[in-house]
């Protein structure tokens, strides 16, 4: 049986359908999860999708972080379950302190929407193992508040522990410190990034298929574990 991968829908999520579709195309069973339910429905991995949950009120991800489903997610992440936060999902993971740092408004003060080049800096996570170390990939980036910030000590620790998973190439689109596009937690099972791999899984709708490896990586990880 194919591993079941959940995608949480919050009020204001936009890319949950695309994430579910990417999971299906990779060969796993997509499972829609609802933010107000305090269950993960027995899934083996969870994706927090992009969008504007709770209208980005207060701060991006600040209110969704306290949704009932998040209590379960935080427990599961602590026990090693793979969790991927994309864009708004990354913001939620930072607000939930599953990942360090925070995302602030782009330094360019405009919404950025482009095909973004980045380098895979770590293949030691369940979400990036199918890439080559140092591989250059292109993934859709679209955000208004994608500037990754953290104090110098945290940034040094992330670099030193190999937890910068993706780094922007050919120009920093949003002012992220040290060109950071995505990071992981200490264990590596929780990964957050601003670009949207779920939009790069089908030649009809994406300029590259570089997003596919995110989903096949985790599928491989889950299959190997079973």
């Amino acid at each position, binding site marked *: 049986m194919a591993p079941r991968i959940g995608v949480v829908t919050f009020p204001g999520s936009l890319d949950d359908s695309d994430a579910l579709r990417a999971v299906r195309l990779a060969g796993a069973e997509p499972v829609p999860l609802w933010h107000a339910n305090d269950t993960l429905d027995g899934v083996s991995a969870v994706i927090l999708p992009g969008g504007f949950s709770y209208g980005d009120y207060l701060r991006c991800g*600040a209110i969704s972080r306290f949704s009932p489903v998040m209590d379960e997610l935080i427990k599961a992440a602590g026990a090693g379950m793979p969790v991927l936060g994309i864009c708004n999902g990354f913001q939620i993971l930072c607000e939930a302190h599953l990942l360090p740092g*925070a995302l*602030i*408004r*782009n330094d360019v003060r405009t919404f950025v929407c482009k095909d973004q080049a980045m380098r895979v800096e770590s293949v030691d996570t369940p979400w990036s193992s199918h890439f080559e170390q140092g591989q250059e990939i292109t993934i859709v980036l679209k955000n208004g508040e994608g500037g990754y910030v953290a104090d110098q000590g945290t940034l040094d620790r992330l670099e030193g522990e190999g937890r910068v998973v993706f780094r922007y190439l050919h120009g920093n689109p949003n002012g992220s410190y040290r060109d950071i596009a995505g990071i992981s937690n200490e264990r590596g099972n929780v990964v957050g990034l601003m670009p949207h791999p779920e939009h790069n899984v089908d030649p009809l709708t994406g300029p590259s298929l570089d997003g596919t490896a995110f989903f096949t990586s985790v599928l491989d990880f889950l299959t190997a574990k079973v």
Partner: protein
Amino acid sequence: MARVVVDVMPKPEILDPQGKAVTGALGRLGFSGMAVRQGKRFEIEVDGEVTDERLEQVRQAAEMLLANTVIESFDVRVETPIEQATF
């Protein structure tokens, strides 16, 4: 009933794109020499007296939800004097 105010500001070392945009607009309007940092103000109407315990609860709320202390600092203060209950 009393009002407790929580002011939330981006930490000095964190870039404030909103403040920068406002600063730029002020300059264009002729208000020179004004550098703006933009924060948030929360006005909380508190039932009953504002005791130390109550203020501590507001501080906890600020720490947990109103501010993200990774990037923001906050300040809690009582705005209006506590009204004496009359029976």
